[in-house]
């Protein structure tokens, strides 16, 4: 559980919010000329970033407005909250240094967890 700073209501518990997918996906114009592949790209394909990710959230029980958030999906650290229509602010994020881009700490994914020498010896 974490606290989200709603741009309208202020800091509230995560349970009041609903996740609403990746942000900044523009609805295509001239949809009548689009191929099925282009439709599939728009409707289904998401970047699924591990690390800093711009996403939409909805404050379901409070102001019932959507807003954007920059969140590190590996560590759940929230770097910025900004309104719909605004460009993502520049943030300084402590992103993972591993070659594949995994978070070195705080990741719930055991497959990419960095082990200490003691843990390694014990396993």
């Amino acid at each position: 559980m974490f606290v989200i700073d709603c741009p309208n209501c202020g800091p509230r518990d995560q349970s009041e919010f609903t996740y609403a997918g990746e942000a900044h996906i523009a609805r295509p114009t001239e949809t009548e000329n689009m191929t099925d592949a282009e439709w599939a790209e728009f409707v289904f394909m998401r970047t699924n970033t591990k690390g800093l990710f711009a996403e939409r959230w909805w404050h379901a029980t409070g102001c019932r407005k959507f807003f954007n958030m920059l969140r590190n999906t590996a560590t759940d650290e929230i770097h910025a909250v900004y309104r719909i229509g605004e460009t993502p602010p520049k943030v300084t994020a402590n992103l993972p240094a591993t070659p594949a881009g995994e978070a070195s700490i705080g990741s719930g994914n055991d497959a990419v967890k960095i082990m200490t020498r003691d843990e390694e010896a014990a396993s």
Partner: protein
Amino acid sequence: MNATLTAPVRRSPLAHRSAVSAPDDLLHLSERAFDAKIVLRGLPEVLAPAVGKVTGLAMPEATRSTANETHRLLWQSPDEFLLLGPVDGELELMAALTAELDGQHVQIVNVTDYHTTLVLSGPKARETLMTLSTLDLHPRGFALDQVAGTTFGHALGWLVQTRDDEAEGGPSFEILVRWSHADYLFCELTHGARAFGMPEARPVSGEKMEI
């Protein structure tokens, strides 16, 4: 035809409950049904003149409410406000606001029968609400006239503090809750206040009380 059968009669959602209290005036829980409730949607600067003229209230800032003896205006979102008024006053308010806001880009909806108001007052009111909500309910975090929409147990509700902590009898809170959730929330509030000697109530529909 029997006039008593056709007369319009309202029955509040908690008509089967009576007000309950904890010993030593620690807590009082009751329902105040049928307050006039009107949702106003529109930009505050558009709504402000009409609301001021009809009710005498100023538009509240974010997460706040404004009130006088008869009316209260709750902020619900940047373009949505809930106006509470006296019982049986909703049609009059609707007519006055509609006339004032004629032609403007606004929405005025009578939601009197959507919600009911639970009034929880007393020195232990904050602690009782804390058992049900994730809000920061410390007096520094939630003060007089403040408004928050949140969940209480499984029920959605709008919380507003209507009496200051320093006032005689302790703080008073009002929760605007959906008609159909009112009995559940009433029981949850009595359940949360067990520690203060509140008599417990069980939901008539058999909802689970465990959160």
